[in-house]
């Protein structure tokens, strides 16, 4: 993949839509981040007693019909409705109207980790308890990985490139990078990122079986990445969708926001367990920097993957210190306020990084009181840190060996 200095069209991010346990709009989410407010709480969606994990970044109940067209309510999983909310916000923020653009000018690439599990569980329950006649026809697609791309594309008339990227939790960065490739190949506008979530007993069981979930019932102590007390991850629901445009066309139509650009990206895959070779995370970071044509010293902040599993935290701390030098760059994990949003976390981190660039502030990592890697990491803890930000690295890992790294930079 080539870097920024080629003749291919440049792009700019012109719109952001965010949904998180702490807010259903980008503005609400961002102000909660700057207040250090956490949305991690005891699950209410279903009774979690009897499961080892009982807390999550659950989005509070809201009136979906106020946000999502009535025709779409019977055919959408909860996470798809959230994706539709974020897509609408992103396009409105960009001031872009795909219906007024040429037929194939706009596309969508989103990331998914599991599809609409909650919808699927409801229909499987109907199938096994009552019979096939009780299963919704919409099960045919409501559970499916690309369903968010499909529903967003249909609603907004995005008839250009459409795809879903599945790389467990790392796919959100891969999706954004794929959107960049579509812009470079001539598509004027892409909606990209990921909104994900899967808080149903079926998915809960699968997540717990991953062996990486925190068993702490205390919302303030369950998810403590880079803390000596870390004991696993907390998951949540939400994510972000971005509007990415060809920079020249965005300028022509007078786009009001220019949040920044994707300066570099790379993805690697871990070697086979037991091979003795190092994990691929550090290589993903160095390749993303190379793609951006940037040196480590050019990066102002790192949004860490911050898994919350001690061995994974140690590996990430070592990879970051290896690239940037010990305490060589501020590192933060605002996902300590939302939990890991499956494929939605990294896109939300990208959105958060772009807001950091806009406002000149590093968002905090919360609840970490006993840092485990202080000699390696300069962790932005508890309170935001005001400083000029012109670039950020976002790191994301997915179970099974996925590593992705993406650099955003203020628009040129």
């Amino acid at each position, binding site marked *: 993949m080539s870097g920024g200095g080629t003749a291919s069209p440049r792009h700019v991010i012109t719109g952001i839509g965010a949904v998180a346990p702490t807010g259903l709009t980008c503005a609400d989410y961002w102000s909660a981040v700057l207040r250090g407010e956490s949305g991690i709480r005891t699950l209410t969606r279903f009774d979690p007693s009897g499961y080892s994990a009982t807390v999550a970044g659950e989005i509070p109940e809201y009136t979906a019909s106020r946000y999502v067209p*009535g025709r779409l309510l019977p055919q959408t999983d909860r996470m798809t409705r959230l994706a539709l909310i974020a897509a609408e916000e992103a396009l409105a923020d960009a001031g872009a109207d795909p219906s007024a653009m040429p037929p194939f000018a706009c596309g969508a690439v989103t990331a998914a980790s599991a599809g609409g599990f909650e919808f699927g569980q409801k229909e499987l329950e109907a199938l096994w308890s009552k019979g096939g006649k009780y299963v919704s*026809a919409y099960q045919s697609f409501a559970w499916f990985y690309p369903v968010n791309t499909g529903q967003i594309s249909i609603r907004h008339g995005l008839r250009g490139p459409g795809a879903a990227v599945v790389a467990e939790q790392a796919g959100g960065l891969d999706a954004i990078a794929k959107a960049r490739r579509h812009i470079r190949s001539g598509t004027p506008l892409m909606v990209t990122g990921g909104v994900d979530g899967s808080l149903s007993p079926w998915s809960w069981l699968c997540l717990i079986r991953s062996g990486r979930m925190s068993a702490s019932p205390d919302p303030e102590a369950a998810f403590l990445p880079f803390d000596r007390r870390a004991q696993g991850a907390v998951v949540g629901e939400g994510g972000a969708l971005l509007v990415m445009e060809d920079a020249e066309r965005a300028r022509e139509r007078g786009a009001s926001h220019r949040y920044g650009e994707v300066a570099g990206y790379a993805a690697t895959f871990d070697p086979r367990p037991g091979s003795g070779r190092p994990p691929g995370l550090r290589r993903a970071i160095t390749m993303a920097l190379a793609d951006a044509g940037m040196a480590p010293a050019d990066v102002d902040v790192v949004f860490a993957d911050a898994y919350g599993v001690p061995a994974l935290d140690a590996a990430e701390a070592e990879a970051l210190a290896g690239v940037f030098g010990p305490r060589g760059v501020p590192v933060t994990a605002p996902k300590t306020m939302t939990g890991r949003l499956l494929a939605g976390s990294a896109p939300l981190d990208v959105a958060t990084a772009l807001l950091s660039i806009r406002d000149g502030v590093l968002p905090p990592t919360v609840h970490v009181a006993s840092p485990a890697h202080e000699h390696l990491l300069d962790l932005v803890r508890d309170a935001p840190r005001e400083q000029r930000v012109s670039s950020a690295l976002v790191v994301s890992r997915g179970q099974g060996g996925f590593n992705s790294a993406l650099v955003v930079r203020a628009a040129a």
Partner: protein
Amino acid sequence: MAPFPTFTTKQLVDLLRECAGEDEAVDLDGDILDLAFTDLGYDSLALFNTVSRIERDYAVELPEDVVGEAGTPRQLLDLVNAGIAERV
């Protein structure tokens, strides 16, 4: 003996709302009997979902191609009521 149950417009509208949702631009409480389902915002999957619910709730078997055959609410009501009459 109670009269045969008849499938009414209101019952159809209730099930459409529940099984397929409602387009904000359409007034389902208005005079819809002879409007095309497509003009009411319903595609074939929406009808398929609604028809299978009707079959379940009213214990009727509708023709295999009912979704293609019934282009309007009135046509669907007629098919369902014919099915109910046949059942008894």
